[in-house]
């Protein structure tokens, strides 16, 4: 479980002893490598948590830091620095992988702010009917029935062109809905990035609901694709 964001505590550089309160991989004062900080993935790139990210800039920074952290550069450094170059590289890789993907980035930021996403909130025995995408249930159920029929037909070596066509249609439809969810998510990104605490809280709630809907749709598209392709 991620910890909720706290304001950064100043850390003194192990080498030059100058305190810095940025969770950086290198000391801003003497440029020496630092042990992995307890900061979040955004701070690894010197960023404040945000959802609209400049991906080209992020990639650029990732490559720059990767080169700087490369273990070869620490071949003659002290044992601590050698270890840190490995640990920082692992942190950098995790951070980049998470932030470059729009969905992972959104989930990560929401978790940082204390939201419970996916399986995590299901651990609590609570029900909140507003979370269930009710308009989808009927369709999801029917689609699952068709998928089951399709799998059975395939197993028997039978062809069912009508069912096949219907499933392909359903797939296109759910892919369309997935695009709509992604558009809505992007709209919430901007609200979150620009908003004050109140606006952010509202955007967070919206995004958690959208991610639930997205997970649902994504599983459906995956199942249909698998069944059609099998």
């Amino acid at each position, binding site marked *: 479980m991620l910890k909720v964001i706290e304001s950064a505590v100043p850390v003194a550089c192990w080498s030059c002893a100058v305190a810095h309160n940025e969770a950086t991989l290198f000391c801003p004062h003497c440029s020496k490598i630092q042990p992995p900080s307890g900061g979040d993935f955004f701070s690894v790139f010197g960023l404040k948590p945000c959802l609209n990210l400049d991906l080209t800039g992020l990639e650029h920074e990732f490559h720059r830091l990767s080169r700087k952290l490369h273990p070869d550069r620490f071949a003659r450094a002290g044992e601590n620095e050698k270890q840190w170059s490995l640990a920082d590289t692992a942190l950098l890789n995790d951070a980049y992988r998470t932030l470059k993907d729009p969905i992972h980035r959104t989930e990560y930021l929401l978790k940082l702010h204390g939201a419970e996403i996916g399986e995590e909130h299901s651990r609590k025995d609570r029900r909140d009917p507003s979370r*269930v995408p009710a308009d989808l249930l009927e369709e999801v159920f029917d689609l699952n029935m068709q998928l089951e029929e399709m799998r059975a037909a395939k197993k028997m070596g039978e062809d069912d062109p009508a069912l096949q066509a219907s499933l392909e249609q359903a797939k296109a439809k759910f892919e369309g809905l997935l695009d709509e969810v992604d558009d809505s998510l992007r709209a919430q990104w901007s609200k979150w990035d620009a908003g004050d605490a109140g606006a952010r809280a509202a955007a967070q709630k919206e995004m958690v609901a959208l991610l639930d809907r997205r997970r649902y749709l994504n599983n459906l598209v995956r199942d249909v694709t698998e069944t059609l392709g099998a």
Partner: protein
Amino acid sequence: MAYSDKVVDHYNNPRNVGTLDKSSQEVGTGLVGAPECGDVMRLQIKVNPDTQVIEEAKFKTFGCGSAIASSSLATEWIKGRTVEDALAIKNTDIVKELSLPPVKIHCSVLAEDAIRAAISDWKKKNGVAEAAAAETAAQ
């Protein structure tokens, strides 16, 4: 994580899988889903109009083993009970019976929700006062 023997048994031999006639006056249908894992569960009951006893219960669940076992067990339990008695079933009873681990508790919640949804649909169809049911559901 290993499933308990009871879950495996219900999963391999699910009881009361099937469909009841949705349009029948005596049938109530509950369709619920868990966005967390994408499970969908349909539970249907056929209620005797004179005695209010649930004479038939059928389910169809798309989801994990625990979700299937929870709904299978739910149909077993509500059969033969009156509607009001069936509402007394709590998800914690299902958790206990099936020894569900904490990560699968939501499956039992889903099964309880499905029972409530089916009964509420039946009540709506038959003009039974919804106030009391809505109150319980809101808790």
